[in-house]
């Protein structure tokens, strides 16, 4: 679809489902399926790697090539295609060639060879690291073909800033269908039947939440509000950002459907301030939806009116918590409140409120369009549908992955993720962010669904999956998450405010090689007290990383406190750097970089580190090209 297609086509307000279908047909007919198209990933990862420069290079090269206007390829900028570690990514349609690590210098060759000559540029194609085989298209790459992209189906295909692209792919069909053929009650019933559970972390059944709000309205009266939780704060998580950036209409359509089902007239999208592109794309999506009569007054002439606004977060992790998010929308500091009364009864402005996560809302149109039975058949009976994960850390294929619920952990990390870079088995996978837990390698066959993860002591969380290898220390990781949550604790309740600080102090001691085995027990009992006593989920789930690492990696804790050793070689106080004289070539690059100036040795002769002066910054190890710096 051309960028200006929205202007060429009928931009009038749509007044019925037929109108929408007609527009969709018009858009599809205006597209030539054989016309070459260059799709450049403009997700945050690829953009940071230089994809805007690649796009500009294509524009220049195409102009210079003097291609006839009729066959001139279109250039499309899409949201994140998921395979971030291979970016910038470029897809050439209709053949579907998948080019990775594309630089502006490669563009001329792509235009000459592929666009004009219909030949692939071999060196830019994906090579399977295991078989060494060259793969031409996205569909054949294991990273993609082992996934089931349902929520992400549009991302990487559509231009998120053009509503026509979304409509051509079937966007707003679910809304039109619901408004013209279903009662609000039927919409709620369909969501209940689908078994959809909240993707934000806790996995509460979405249908039950909606039902609760309807009952509250009946009891206490309205209005009712619908809210999108786009405050994706878990470090290492970028699923929601990708959905908001790459397919903003899916979130918006879900929200409008929710509003129709619940009788809401006003909605809010609370989006993290660190996601400026998501905010921009959502704003554009809302403007375009309003212009087409899909949002605002009298949607599709049905008499149903609903509008929404975007609230930018201001940098507080706790605002991902429902009640904190509401107080933030009200313009106050984001302090959570005790939930004796549920937020479906008293939420925003004290009124019944349905708050769902971005991915949850994006699932709603799919369920309404294809039916609860179709949806229920995906995944496992107690966790239906798919889940999007961000696979990061020590894994070859860093990126965004969508799989059916219940997929074994090893399939995600080893088959789709391609395993850890050093070829060894992974040591642990942290799921659920700072509130989740660390799963060891021997749980690699664990099905990844809400209940299995909780049973193993972790949680689904929003879907961050952080892979660790044998160079990562679990004490350090537990300490990292605690420090994070200690910093982010709003300070309202004592168990969280002081308990987390005390836990972090104990872990600090461990990482310094101090403490005793009884401290490990103390840490466990303190964790339980915090779990029981904290006011909100930030506090009550905060001990999870420490508890699971103690449960699965007790030996490593004991090595710290009893033997004063950090087996992974991470905790600074417990390690020494040294230079292997056999491997050292005396190139002096470490000595030049050392901020302490404590590396000595003659040129072309093995060097030494003065361990008394060494601050263990690790720069020498990072600098050495010969792997001569060792950690003991």
């Amino acid at each position, binding site marked *: 679809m051309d960028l200006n297609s929205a202007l060429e086509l009928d931009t009038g307000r749509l007044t019925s489902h037929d109108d929408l279908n007609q527009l969709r047909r018009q858009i599809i007919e205006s597209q030539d399926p054989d016309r070459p198209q260059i799709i450049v990933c403009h997700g*945050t990862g690829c953009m940071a790697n230089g994809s805007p420069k690649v796009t500009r290079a294509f524009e220049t090269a195409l102009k210079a090539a003097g291609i006839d206007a009729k066959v001139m390829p279109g250039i499309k900028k899409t949201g994140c295609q998921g395979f971030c570690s291979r970016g910038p990514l470029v897809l050439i349609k209709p053949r579907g060639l998948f080019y990775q690590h594309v630089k502006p210098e490669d563009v001329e060759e792509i235009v000459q060879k592929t666009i004009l000559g219909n030949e692939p540029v071999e060196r830019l194609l994906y090579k399977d690291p295991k078989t060494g085989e060259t793969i031409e298209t996205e569909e054949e790459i294991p990273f993609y073909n082992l996934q089931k992209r349902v929520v992400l189906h549009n991302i990487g295909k559509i231009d998120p800033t053009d509503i026509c692209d979304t409509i051509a792919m079937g966007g707003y069909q679910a809304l039109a269908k619901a408004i013209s053929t279903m009662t609000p009650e039927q919409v709620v019933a369909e969501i209940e039947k689908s078994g959809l559970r909240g993707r934000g972390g806790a996995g509460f059944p979405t249908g039950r939440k909606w039902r609760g709000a309807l009952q509250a309205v009946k009891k206490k009266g309205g209005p009712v509000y619908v809210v999108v939780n786009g405050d994706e704060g878990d470090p290492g998580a970028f699923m929601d950002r990708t959905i908001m950036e790459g397919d903003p209409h899916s979130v918006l359509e879900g929200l409008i459907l929710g509003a129709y089902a619940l009788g809401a007239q006003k909605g809010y999208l609370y989006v993290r301030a660190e996601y400026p592109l998501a905010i921009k794309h959502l704003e554009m999506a809302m403007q375009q939806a309003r212009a087409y009569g899909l949002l605002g007054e009298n949607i599709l002439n049905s008499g149903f009116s609903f509008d929404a606004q975007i609230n930018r977060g201001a940098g*507080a992790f706790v605002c991902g918590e429902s009640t904190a998010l509401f107080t933030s929308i009200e313009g106050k*500091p*984001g302090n959570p409140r005790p939930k004796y009364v549920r937020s479906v009864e008293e939420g925003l402005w004290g009124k019944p409120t349905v708050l769902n996560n971005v991915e949850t809302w994006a699932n709603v149109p799919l369920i309404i369009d294809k039916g609860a039975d179709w949806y229920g058949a995906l995944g496992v009976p107690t966790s239906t549908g798919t889940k999007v994960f*961000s696979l990061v850390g020590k894994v070859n294929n*860093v990126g965004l992955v969508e799989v059916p619920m219940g997929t074994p952990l090893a399939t995600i990390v080893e088959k789709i993720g391609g395993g850890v870079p050093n070829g060894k088995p992974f040591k642990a996978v942290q799921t659920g962010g700072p509130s989740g837990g660390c799963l060891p390698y021997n749980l690699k066959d664990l099905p990844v669904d809400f209940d299995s993860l909780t049973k193993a002591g972790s949680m689904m969380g929003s879907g961050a999956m952080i892979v660790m290898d044998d160079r990562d220390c679990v004490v350090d990781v537990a300490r990292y998450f605690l420090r994070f949550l200690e910093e982010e604790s709003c300070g309202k309740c004592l168990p969280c405010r002081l308990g987390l600080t005390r836990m972090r102090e104990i872990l600090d001691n461990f990482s310094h090689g101090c403490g005793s085995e009884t401290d490990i027990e103390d840490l466990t009992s303190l964790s339980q007290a915090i779990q029981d006593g904290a006011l909100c989920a930030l506090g009550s789930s905060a001990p999870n990383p420490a508890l699971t690492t103690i449960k699965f990696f007790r030996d490593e804790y004991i090595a710290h406190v009893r033997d004063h050793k950090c087996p992974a070689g991470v905790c600074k106080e417990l390690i020494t750097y040294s230079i292997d004289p056999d491997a050292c070539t005396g190139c002096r690059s470490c000595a030049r970089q050392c901020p302490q100036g404590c590396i000595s040795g003659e040129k072309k002769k093995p060097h030494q580190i003065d361990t008394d002066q060494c601050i263990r910054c690790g720069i020498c190890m990072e600098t050495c090209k010969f792997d001569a710096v060792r950690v003991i």
Partner: protein
Amino acid sequence: MPYQSGIIERILDRYPAQPEYLIFLLQDIQADCGFISSTSMQRVSDHTGVPVTQAYSVATFYQSFRLEPHGEHEIRVCLGTACHLKGGQRIVEQVERRLGIGPGETTEDMMFTLDTVNCVGACALAPVMVIDDEYESNITAGKVEKILKKLQQD
């Protein structure tokens, strides 16, 4: 620009005089002026009817608000989990050593402000450093040196 009444008035005009728009106003002022001065805080308080003490409570609760001017270049080092595992903390220490400031601080010549961020979501590029909204990927101590040198020369 510490305080320019014209700018502040224009921003105030964008939103209704209601307490719920406090955060919107503070965000817009910061975007245009770089920080929120005490004078602008007073104006926002008068406009929204939120007592100035409460407006400060909001401004200090959320990490993104600044009450002091910041340096010409803003260096943000990501400390998300992926960056942490790949040595993000080492990068912070390297910048600290190089500039003699800690996170949240600005150099005396007002050239650089150093901050750490929880996660910028560019985990494939870890460790990541963001300089004035430009992402720098796979940062090493050597790259920090090069980047800072270049900025100081410009």
